[in-house]
């Protein structure tokens, strides 16, 4: 494969385009709402109408507005159809010849779509994730070519540093710095790992990226491999995402066939292979040291850092671990330049972030917005607020490691520092909206139960502490707790946070601490009034 071959594939793909394209969402949300049958029915309807030369039916990745799926969008005019059923296909195809249809129409000019800025999801909803040609026609693998032919590994690392990209897995560590450390560590063998163990409940961004644009991850990983000097990559995916796994495996196969993975990529001396590793349902494996244990085929228990994986990781070799979304940003940065990327977002948080909007909100789905966008804009303007106009009570970000942001703080801009100052974290990007019907103590108990079940059991503070905190929360919910119990809960939170081995334990108290900070009254209302000897409730015990 040389650049002319790449251009030829792209040209052929573009030349094969027809006058109309019916883009049919085939990502997880729509997939489970029967979009496979819808696509089949549309293909049949096109055939029946004799329009095969004019109309292409294309299965694409996530089209964002999951709650209205299955979605079908018509190019070139952009009409968006919602909740399409297989039996609607004839009338839908009929509209191309001036017919009418009663299928519900969406508004592609609503704020939900217009307020988005797509870098990671730029191809999502447009290209066919099952065909590499579709990705190549969207300038795919061009960045890899330019990097291999025109840049030194050091120049690539410098470009990533200059872009200001930070890890999208939640903690926000500067990506370029990590790449630089791995590149500098001397070793005959190095590895690149893509962390696709998206365990946070309520988050489905990585899943959507893998299902919608798997080649962008492969390209990002190959570029990273070149920059740090690795020849082997692993993608660690959850077993709960079968569709993502099959699309990823299919993408790797196609890339190998085309010579875009393997040895001598673009006739350079660079060799890079990628294998898929499937998780087996352990939340702690999202932690990087635990994940590496799992890739090695062992129990996924974390180990203390340092040494950091960048120095001693997989089988003791220097290892670069980045999140799915981080890798998806790499090719666009190298294609369009670090300055372009750095011009988006805030001073310390560059670029965009993908969020999975879910819970008590009208428009559930996937959004990508520039860093620094106000939470209120996301929840009220784009999300359309809670259904039935109920007031929003809180927004939960960062899953079990994050916290609840109260409605009063909705004007906070979304970036790493602002969310941390509210006791929450950016996290991987799950955003769950809660309304008045949600009891915050119940939410805290829900997350603590999660952490209790998922604690790997290696260190005592996390293994025993989560159990104790959970039973205290149960006690509070059963109205059996006293003020002393609440105090003990707070002490335990501090202790578990400060002494746990890995991120799971260190962040497990966050949901409790943040709900205590903003919704303390809900806890206090549930406390048992301590009774004095005469049986009368004692006044306000603090």
């Amino acid at each position: 494969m040389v650049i002319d071959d790449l251009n030829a594939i792209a040209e052929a793909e573009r030349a094969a385009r027809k006058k109309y394209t019916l883009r049919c969402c085939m990502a997880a949300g729509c997939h489970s709402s029967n979009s496979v049958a819808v696509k089949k029915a549309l293909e049949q309807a096109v055939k029946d109408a004799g329009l095969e030369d004019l109309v292409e039916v294309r299965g694409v990745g996530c089209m964002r507005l999951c709650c209205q799926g299955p979605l079908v969008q018509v190019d070139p005019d952009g009409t968006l159809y919602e909740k399409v059923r297989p039996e609607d296909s004839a009338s839908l195809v009929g509209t191309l010849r001036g017919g009418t249809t009663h299928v519900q129409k969406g508004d592609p000019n609503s704020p939900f779509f217009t307020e988005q800025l797509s870098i990671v999801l730029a191809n999502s909803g447009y290209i066919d994730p099952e065909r590499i040609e579709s990705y190549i026609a969207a300038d795919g693998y061009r960045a890899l070519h330019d990097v291999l032919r025109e840049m030194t590994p050091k120049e690539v690392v410098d470009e990533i540093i200059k872009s200001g990209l930070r890890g999208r897995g939640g903690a926000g560590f500067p990506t370029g710095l990590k790449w630089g450390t791995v590149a500098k560590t001397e070793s005959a063998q190095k590895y690149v790992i893509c962390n696709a163990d998206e365990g946070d409940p309520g988050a489905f961004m990585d899943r959507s990226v893998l299902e919608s644009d798997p080649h962008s991850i492969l390209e990002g990983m190959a570029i990273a491999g070149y920059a740090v000097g690795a020849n082997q990559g692993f993608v660690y995916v959850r077993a709960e995402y079968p569709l993502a796994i099959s699309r990823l495996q299919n993408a790797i196969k196609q890339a190998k066939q085309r010579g875009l993975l393997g040895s001598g990529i673009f006739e350079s001396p660079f060799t890079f292979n990628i294998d898929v590793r499937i998780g087996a349902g352990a939340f702690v494996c999202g932690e990087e040291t635990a994940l590496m244990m799992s890739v090695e085929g062992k129990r996924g228990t974390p180990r203390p850092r340092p040494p950091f994986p960048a120095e001693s990781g997989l089988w003791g070799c220097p290892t670069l671990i980045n999140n799915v979304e981080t890798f998806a940003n790499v090719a666009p940065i190298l294609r369009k330049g670090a300055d372009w990327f750095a011009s988006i977002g805030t001073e310390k948080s560059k670029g965009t972030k993908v969020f999975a909007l879910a819970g008590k909100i009208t428009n559930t789905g996937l959004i990508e917005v520039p860093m620094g966008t106000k939470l209120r804009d996301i929840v009220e303007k784009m999300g359309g607020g809670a259904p039935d106009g109920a007031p929003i009570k809180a927004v939960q970000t960062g899953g079990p490691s994050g916290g609840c942001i109260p409605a009063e703080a909705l004007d906070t801009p979304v970036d790493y520092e602002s969310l941390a100052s509210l006791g929450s974290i950016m996290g991987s990007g799950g955003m769950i909206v809660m309304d008045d019907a949600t009891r915050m103590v119940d939410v805290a108990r829900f997350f603590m139960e999660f952490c209790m079940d998922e604690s790997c059991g290696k260190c005592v503070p996390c293994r025993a502490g989560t159990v104790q905190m959970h039973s205290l929360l149960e006690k509070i919910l059963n109205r059996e707790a006293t003020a002393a119990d609440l105090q003990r809960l707070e002490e335990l939170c501090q202790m578990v946070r400060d002494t746990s081995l890995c991120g799971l334990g260190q962040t497990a108290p966050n949901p409790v601490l943040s709900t205590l900070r903003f919704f303390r009254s809900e806890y206090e209302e549930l406390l048992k009034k301590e009774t004095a000897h005469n049986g009368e409730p004692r006044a306000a015990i603090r």
Partner: protein
Amino acid sequence: MIATISNTKKNRLPEILEHASGDKRFKILEAHMKKHQFKHDALIEVLHKAQELFGYLEDDLLLFVAYKLKLPPSRVYGVATFYHFFTLKPQGAHTCVVCMGTACYVKGADKVLAAIEQAAKIKAGGTTPDNQLSLMTARCIGACGIAPAVVYDGTVTPRQTPELAVQHVKGWIDHGN
């Protein structure tokens, strides 16, 4: 498994291999291990395949894997019990997985689960006595846009209510009555 090993002081290997020789699925599993060159780090992949073939991981199966991969049985057992995805008990003919992710939870997944538990007279994690239905919960299946979601026999079904869910599993739990 611990019991199996400690109860048999003698090497049970010949017995297990004989058991395996009469079952085609062991051959498929061995071919899968060969594909991974019997590498130790392929253990999780091999266990995935074993569970796919047999439905659950019984003692002899784990010992067979340990022997073929040249790993101590403790390591294989340790991995099989660490990960939630692997089960050491047989599953029912049908499976029903209720997603208990945050988005599903705030939209009432707990009520859906309670309704199924009541209808099937089993708790989450259990199997009906006639082995027809296994009821499980999932941490999050990433289908938050269509919450609450339930997976019936591998098919993700959107926007469930307690009534819809009970209706769905009814055919399975009434079986034989």
